[in-house]
């Protein structure tokens, strides 16, 4: 230890995380996925603008409000993206974490650097979590931008009937980003674990995404209502409470607890698997 420490000079403890984030967000695939997510609110806004078809009472939540207030584009886009687009992109990133490195062969070089297996896994998870936040943020920011460009914006009427100004809206929007990102952390942990099982990143990605879809299907079957509260997707659309005044935090706390449970269980499985795994790729 002493010699290694002597040679270390000033080492930054977070340099691996910085490197991971830089690698992830400079990658063309990541940029393309974030671009695709940004297209969701843009397409919605253009469709509503061109057809002026709001207010029919059908379609996704909030879509009827868009023509009155462009800020609702962000809410609509988020609601539309939660079941498919967000789990899809998060599944790609989470499934790629370890399996992608194993597939490239770079995993062995990271480990002999030595990155430390636990540290590497933690960094991978944090980076995937940062991607989930970024993905959600991109939808909201693009939604607000395109909404402001195509529609009038003004004070937002909440579900409880109260009205908040633009600054109040900003707070609610950030809370929504926090809620949705948090909702994805359980899925990210599942993806991380699956990623430690294989050297084929596409397999890990597909398995993660399939699980997200399967969980939502189970959640839609009333016969299986007993397991509904335990599904990691169960609270995905439960952010309405954040759009009331005063804010009801119950669903937020409940969701946080559920996601934490998934993070702990699948995080532990991932650690158990990865720290004992023979890296032969």
């Amino acid at each position, binding site marked *: 230890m002493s010699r290694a420490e002597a040679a270390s000079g000033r080492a*930054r403890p977070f340099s*691996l995380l910085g490197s991971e984030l830089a690698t992830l967000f400079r990658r063309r695939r990541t940029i393309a996925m974030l671009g695709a997510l940004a297209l969701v609110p843009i397409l919605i806004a253009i469709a509503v603008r061109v057809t002026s078809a709001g207010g029919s009472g059908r379609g996704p939540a909030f879509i009827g409000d868009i023509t009155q207030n462009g800020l609702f584009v962000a809410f609509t886009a988020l609601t539309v993206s939660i079941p498919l687009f967000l789990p899809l992109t998060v599944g790609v990133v989470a499934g790629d974490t370890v399996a992608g490195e194993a597939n490239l062969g770079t995993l062995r070089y990271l480990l002999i650097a030595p990155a430390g297996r636990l540290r590497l896994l933690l960094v991978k998870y944090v980076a995937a979590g940062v991607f989930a936040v970024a993905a959600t943020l991109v939808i909201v920011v693009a939604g607000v931008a395109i909404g402001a460009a195509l529609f009038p914006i003004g004070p937002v009427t909440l579900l409880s009937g109260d009205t908040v100004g633009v600054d109040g809206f900003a707070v609610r929007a950030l809370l929504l980003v926090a809620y949705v990102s948090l909702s994805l952390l359980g899925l990210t942990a599942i993806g991380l674990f699956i990623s430690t099982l294989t050297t084929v990143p596409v397999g890990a990605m597909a398995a993660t995404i399939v699980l997200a879809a399967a969980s939502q299907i189970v959640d839609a079957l009333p016969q299986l209502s007993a397991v509904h509260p335990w599904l990691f997707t169960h609270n995905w659309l439960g952010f309405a409470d954040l759009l009331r005044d005063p804010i009801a935090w119950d669903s937020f706390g409940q969701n946080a607890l559920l996601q934490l449970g998934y993070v702990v269980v699948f995080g532990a499985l991932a650690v158990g698997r990865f720290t004992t795994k023979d890296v032969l790729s």
Partner: protein
Amino acid sequence: MASAAIETSGLTKVFGRQRAVDALDLNVPEGSVFGFLGPNGSGKTTTIRLLLGLAAATSGEIRMLGEAMPAGVPSVLPRVGALVEGPAIYPFLSGRANLLRLDAADRHAASRTRRERIDAALERVGLGHAADKKAHAYSLGMKQRLGIANALLRPRELLILDEPSNGLDPQGTREVRGLIRSLADDGTTVFVSSHLLSEIEQLCSHVAVMSAGRLVAQGTLDELRHGDQRVTIRTPDAAAARRALAELGLVTEAGSERGAVSASLVDGILPETVTAALVNAGVRVRGIAVAGETLEERFVALTGEGFDVAG
């Protein structure tokens, strides 16, 4: 005996029913250039993976740079540079960015000197001009150089190089040889696996040979190569020559040409001892040849002929 940079005892790795590495007792002296030979599938790369803590041994012990492995991974591996089973790159990153990433993974690598060290390593392997090119555009040889540069990011006490010349052109092979020599001159222990026997012969002070997971020979290059030197005598007095050699305790056999007698020089008997004995016996000698086995002959003798890859 010098202390060992790598020492294993009874190192064994079992995959299912196959013993990929079987009771390996390896001893790599500090400061040596150690050639690690063996046919494809003989367990060389698996051994290297065990040494580096990438895979867990089924049984046996490893000591590297004085510490037990894999417990010592955090403190030992920063002092070890390695190329394992070919280079691995992020194709979407430049050569320089590849090294930045791997250096950042080493918690003990100083970030202050990172750029400097990376540039020096790239120059050292002749990749300076291509440092900012995306690595997917690299040729096999350039990827190989990048892998070697990664092993040289910091001053190392031990280098473990698995097939370092793979994919390199003759110039590149020469450069790598020169590089290994200069590193060895600086006191770095170099553990190099290769199929290129001529390269090992030019480069290494010590050699170990693996076959089907087992170590079949280990020692200095001279011990291994000259272990079985042969003397061949051309003489019209073949019968007398045989008697003279037999008195020395050598087992003679008919040489390949008529009137030739040959024998393996066992028990440290020197060629000059043989000539003196022949002269004393009045044997007329037309010619005498001493042939050390080439490493290749020795290798084939140890690991078998033909294309059958040990499974």
